[in-house]
């Protein structure tokens, strides 16, 4: 049972890190796509959504190319910081974050686009500067969508399989999250009991994320009708 606990703990660490690290980036991208017109916008939008449509194995392979010691990002990390993310949980978090990014950007962008900008104008005439109007009007009204995006990204992260196993392999205790552990147990003769336990933990985790999302959305949306 302690082995199961260790796997759940690693899964939460990878999923939590991936979500928290991706959230600011997802918000910035969602804001740019929702609010700005700039050349190459269609291209940026397409690149963000690529992990959603490309086979995860391909995404994992591209990450491997980029983060390998000879790759552009991996080389820089090794030279400047002396670290490598290959076969490490940090690499698993990167894979999970990349796969979760399009879902998070989508949810946050929709919620930002749904904010009535005339309310921001009203705040401005009442003496609020641009930033105060964002902080007191835009953000609170988009909060349910941002929370939903984060939970969606977290659920995607803890379920990530293809890109992770391709990128950082299936290393017990380091990159072996719940889905990878289930896969490993399926390959082991007599591993059925283990599969049951791991699958149950997986479902429980996802359900908990869903309930948390519902609670967050309700809390954030006190005065606002969400649907």
């Amino acid at each position, binding site marked *: 049972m302690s082995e199961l606990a260790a796997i759940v703990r690693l899964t939460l660490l990878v999923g939590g890190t991936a979500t928290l690290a991706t959230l600011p980036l997802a918000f910035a991208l969602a804001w740019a796509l929702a609010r700005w017109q700039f050349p190459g916008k269609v291209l940026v939008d397409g690149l963000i959504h690529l992990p959603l449509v490309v086979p995860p194995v391909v995404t994992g392979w591209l990450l491997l190319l980029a983060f390998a010691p000879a790759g552009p990002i991996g080389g820089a990390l090794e030279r400047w910081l002396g670290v490598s993310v290959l076969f490490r949980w940090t690499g698993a978090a990167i894979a999970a974050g990349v796969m979760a990014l399009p879902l998070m950007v989508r949810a946050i962008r929709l919620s930002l686009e749904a904010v*009535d900008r*005339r*309310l921001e*104008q*009203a*705040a*401005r*005439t*009442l*003496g*609020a*500067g*641009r930033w105060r109007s964002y902080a*007191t*009007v835009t953000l*609170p*009204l988009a909060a349910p969508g941002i929370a939903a995006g984060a939970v969606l990204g977290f659920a995607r992260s803890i379920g990530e399989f293809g890109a992770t196993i391709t990128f950082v392999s299936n290393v017990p205790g380091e990159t072996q999250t719940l889905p990878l552990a289930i896969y490993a147990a399926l390959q082991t003769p007599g591993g059925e009991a283990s599969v049951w336990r791991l699958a149950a933990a997986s479902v429980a985790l996802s359900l908990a994320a869903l309930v948390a999302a519902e609670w967050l959305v309700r809390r954030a*949306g*006190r*005065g*606002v*009708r969400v649907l």
Partner: protein
Amino acid sequence: MSFDVDVSAARGDASVGARFAVGEGLTVLVGPSGAGKTSLLDMIAGLLRPSRGHVRVGGRTLYDSASGIDLPPERRRAGYVFQDMRLFPHRRVRANLLYGAPDAARLAEVAAMLDVSHLLERWPRTLSGGEARRVAIGRALLSDAAFLLLDEPLSSLDPARREEATRAIERVRDARAVPILMVTHDRGEAERLGDRVIAIG
């Protein structure tokens, strides 16, 4: 001069704008729908940039194309009551009223004048049209406004609510604290409320 306005802006193929200079009290601009009344108020509040002209209120220059002055909306001190109210849906009435207020000192007095004291803990979506309108007027009044802009403040209200809102505006007008510019398409409304009436469009 309270309002000294001479602006125009392109809107599609047409041009909207107006030129007038008026004194204290409540000035009503009357014009048909589509005459650009809301665009005019937006230009005075700083939400729409004119292509040329000037906006001066109470001696302060808010916009002047000749000298390049263009104050952002938050520095114009416009108490703008929008036709669609634009109450913040995620804030209770009290927090809406106090959004632009320097402090809460005048809350009780203004709430009483507009008869919204009993609504302070309600959410905006639970208000009737007339109640929401009075809260919007209160929010503008409490925001340390140097002048008020009222965009069709009596439209889409049933007769009883209309009477309530009219009385509320009369009380604000008679308090003589700030100059008021109101636009409407209804001439009767204009005659009843305005110290002077100007036709546009």
